[in-house]
């Protein structure tokens, strides 16, 4: 399969069959917390895509050229989380100084994403899926970045759908026990069920 086809497959898989929120359960906290209104949901998703691609862009070469070259794979967790935390902090400072408009809309969500399962999960998963055993560095790097992008877009799609569902739920008559988080989770379960229908659509 040539590279372009592989990239498209990876992105589609990230959105439909391996959706980070609805199949892999990564990034549930912002999914449940920030999805009440569509504009905050979109802001959060944009920030997540940005941080995911950026973190993968930095952690994947470090895994290949530093951790594996020196035989330090066991330090992966510590090194990755510290890089991600530092990176997000740096991005926030840079945005605040040079693009204040972007900082005003995205900057609020950046600290929430630092300790988010989705970003660290993506960084670790791409090093396993596109490991040095199976792919050369250039190829693996491109696939890793497209995987990060696809997963981020999948997060955005899930958030957008869920924000719509929650908006509709606001005008519904909900039993007292189920008000708040329980009915939200039941709604999420139905959205996840609909995504199950995509299983097998994309052959990885």
């Amino acid at each position, binding site marked *: 399969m040539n590279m372009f086809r592989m990239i498209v497959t990876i992105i589609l898989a990230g959105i439909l069959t391996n959706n980070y929120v*609805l*199949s*892999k*359960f*990564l*990034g*549930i*906290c*912002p999914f*449940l*917390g*920030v999805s*009440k209104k569509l504009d*905050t949901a979109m802001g959060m998703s944009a920030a997540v895509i940005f941080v995911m691609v950026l973190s993968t862009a930095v952690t994947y070469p470090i895994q290949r050229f530093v951790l594996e070259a020196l035989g330090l794979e*066991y*330090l*992966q*967790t*510590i090194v990755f*989380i*510290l890089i991600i*935390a*530092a990176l997000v902090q740096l991005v926030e400072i840079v945005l605040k100084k040079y693009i204040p408009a972007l900082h005003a809309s995205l*900057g*609020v969500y950046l*600290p*929430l994403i630092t*300790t*988010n*399962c989705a970003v*660290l*999960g993506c960084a*670790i*998963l791409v090093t*396993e899926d596109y490991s040095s055993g199976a792919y050369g560095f250039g190829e693996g790097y491109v696939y890793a970045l497209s995987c990060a992008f696809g997963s981020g877009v999948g997060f955005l799609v899930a958030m957008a759908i869920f924000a719509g569902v929650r908006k509709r739920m606001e005008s519904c008559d909900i039993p007292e*026990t*189920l008000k*708040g*988080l*329980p*009915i*939200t*989770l*039941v709604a*999420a*379960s*139905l959205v*996840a*069920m609909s*995504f*199950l229908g995509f299983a097998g659509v994309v052959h990885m």
Partner: protein
Amino acid sequence: MAKKTISMRRDSHEESAAVIEEAQAVEQTEAEAILSEAQAEPLPAAVKKPSAGSTFAGAMKRGVILENPVLRLVLGTCPTLATTTAASNAIGMGIAATLVLICSNTVISLLRNIIPDKVRIPAYITIIASFVSIVQMLVKAFAPALDESLGIYLPLIVVNCIILGRAEMYASKHAPALSALDGLAMGVGFTTALLCMGTIREVLGAGSLFGAKLPILSGQPILFFSLAPGGFFVFGMLIAAANKLSKKNNLPVRNGCGDCPAAATCSLSGKGGCK
């Protein structure tokens, strides 16, 4: 005549704009009032008394029932949903997280006077990540089957909100022994909730319990519960049950930012919260 209607329309426009502004201002002050009320709201007596928190039984009751991290504080939702497809995975995850929680709470509490305030979050993350790496290696060596089934969720303990939240809220303000006790209580609460969910999902979804096949259920398992949607559904039902029980016992149902452990570091807490 036309001028009059235009000026009338303009007036009513201004009027409605003023009404909207007023409503927004009222909403704003109402929201602020609710927020400050929630923050000033006294905790129920059982949680507030320091002696209740510092005795073993009191701390365990707090961690497992009153402030269960999964069902009442709603933290650490990712591993709850992902690792509860089987009860044995749930226990394994719970024990690993408890170990990390106890160790990191103790160390952070020991270092609480030394870590400068500005770098406390990166410092906490480093300490927690070290313990997670240790637990990862232990699990890989002594329980490789558990490592296989937990997969990526074992290293993801490092970003588990429970651990960072307790470090921020409790360990940085209390003595090491109390922090270790709190870590144990929260960990046991986490494991209990995970075990509940794991049992339900395994019994209904695969018709077995800890791998042992059950008589009638294993013939017709309901696959829904083992898959992703089932996780959300069972979690929702468990939180509904927890809410119902806490209403019966007059415990506060958690709302707003005053209760969120991340409120100190969260930038949304000043703007009315992320909900």
